[in-house]
């Protein structure tokens, strides 16, 4: 079983549309994992049935039981996150600032502070239109711990793929280079970097590539909207060459991506223009590279 992770550094380069296309091309042999749990969109293209749903608890939040509080002020003194405030002698925790470290609860002399387990979101296993499954999630608005939810989604997808003897787990990652991205990279067979020829696209590609290098995972790159700035495209190609990243192919700027999205379809299902053929070529290359 191979695990292919699609990331980009910069947001909005086309990760989800491209990942969804690969999933449709490979059909029942792929378990999809939508690991962009902050802003998950894959379900809009895959007609999931949300068959299995489960709550995801992660992290803690301190809570002060006022009836036992002696107002000694120790919790406020030790909190490094300024999450405890006092007004009229009453100590309260600001849930937005509380990191859930549990320090205050440990030192409270009357044990009046308790740590509540936090509901960080929900995760699902769905049957999808490809005849296979997708593992996906929804993070609570403003929640912490997206990295842990990413790990959960990924591990469930892997287990499912092993159980059902699937060839591939295809992971749609989040933008950035922080904890959710790091979490989505662990254990990957191959990384697909999706970029665009802009100053930001290249800048972010360089940073996310540094991260991938730390994990020593082989990678390939797709340049989306390649014709928007041919000069930048060739600059990106030079970078790929110098860093020994496989150039998987270029995709033109094409509003068909949006048209397909509005119909709830992937671009390969829209079946017009050259995009479906381009994506098919790229996917075949990835398959060869991961055998």
């Amino acid at each position, binding site marked *: 079983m191979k695990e292919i992770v699609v990331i980009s550094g910069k947001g909005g380069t086309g990760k989800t549309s491209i990942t969804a296309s690969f999933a449709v091309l490979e059909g029942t042999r792929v378990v999809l994992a939508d690991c962009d749990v902050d802003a998950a969109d894959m379900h809009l293209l895959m007609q999931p049935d949300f068959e299995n749903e489960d709550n995801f608890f992660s992290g803690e939040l301190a809570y002060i039981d006022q009836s036992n509080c002696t107002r000694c002020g120790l919790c406020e003194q030790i909190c490094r996150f300024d999450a405890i405030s006092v007004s009229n002698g009453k100590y309260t925790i600001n849930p*937005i600032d509380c990191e859930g470290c549990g320090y205050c609860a440990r030192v409270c002399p009357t044990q009046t502070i308790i740590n509540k387990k936090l509901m960080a979101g929900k995760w699902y296993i769905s049957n999808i239109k490809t005849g296979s499954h997708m593992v996906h999630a929804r993070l609570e608005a403003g929640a912490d711990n997206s990295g842990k939810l990413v790990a959960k989604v990924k591990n469930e997808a892997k287990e499912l793929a092993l159980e059902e003897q699937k060839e591939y787990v295809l992971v749609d990652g989040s933008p950035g280079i922080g904890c959710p991205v790091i979490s989505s990279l662990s254990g990957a067979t191959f990384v697909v970097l999706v970029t665009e020829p802009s100053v930001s696209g290249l*800048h972010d590609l360089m940073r996310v590539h540094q991260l991938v290098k730390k994990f020593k995972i082989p990678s390939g790159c797709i340049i989306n909207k390649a014709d928007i*700035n041919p000069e930048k495209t060739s600059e990106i190609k030079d970078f790929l060459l110098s860093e020994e990243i496989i150039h998987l192919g270029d995709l033109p700027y094409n509003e068909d991506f949006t048209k397909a999205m*509005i119909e709830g379809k992937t671009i390969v299902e829209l079946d017009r223009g050259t995009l479906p053929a381009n994506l098919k070529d790229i996917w075949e290359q990835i398959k060869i590279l991961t055998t």
Partner: protein
Amino acid sequence: MINRTPFKIAIASGKGGTGKTTLATNLAACIAEQQEVVLVDLDVEEPNSGLFFEGRLLHSEDNLKMIPQWDESKCTLCGLCPKLCNFHAIIQLGPSILVFPELCHSCYACSELCPAGALPMIPRAIGKLNHFQNGRLHHIESRLNVGEEQAVASIAKSKKYAADKLPYVNVHLYDSPPGTSCPVVEAIKDADFVILVTEPTPFGLHDLTLAVETTHKLEKSFGVVINRDGLGNNEVIRYCQAENIPVLARIPNNRRIAELYSAGRLIYPEFPEIREALKDILDYCLSAERSRP
């Protein structure tokens, strides 16, 4: 009117790549034609706004994070510290204690509760803060070192630096990271007004609804800017009307804009209607009621 504290406007979105940086940089440059302005790039994982200005570096410093360091000579191997850490950043492996600095949240619990005083806190550089100036525009960014997981502290640091060093500048713009989780909350939680940038597509709409949820939860005043207007469908505008969310501006879907952006150039100098739109956005933000702190 005398502003005692700067008016802080956060530019955010759920979905990445909707045009946050485009709006933030153009708005900042446009304001700077008239008055001083601070642009703080809070996307510390992928800071891009600096690509659109040639600024003079005024100041640079390490962003430090305090982490525990194991002092073998004092440690009694009592086994308490791994139990104290809610973030699994400390483990005991045979006769040694291992600290995972990337996982540490700097709560000090292990250090201060260690009976032997064997875990003193030491600073560790996790990135750099840079302060640039270009005419009336101050640009502040923090860049997280690649491999670091905790963005929140660097975001807080950038905002604080701007507030401490440039309190006399009336408008502080925050270019926020994408998503809806902890880095975004940190970026917008003390803003006076939030601008959510979206695009009129199903992904754009879906992620806008998530961003609206987060913004509501933080009790912020906010409005929406629709980028690439004309692409996709009318669902975003319908949603905003149904929810009574003010649409502050619509930036047209135009290949030339994408080309200018790709080259690291500002768009409003070439599009008078966008210059007007930016002025309207600023006026709206400043006239809006300040959100609760």
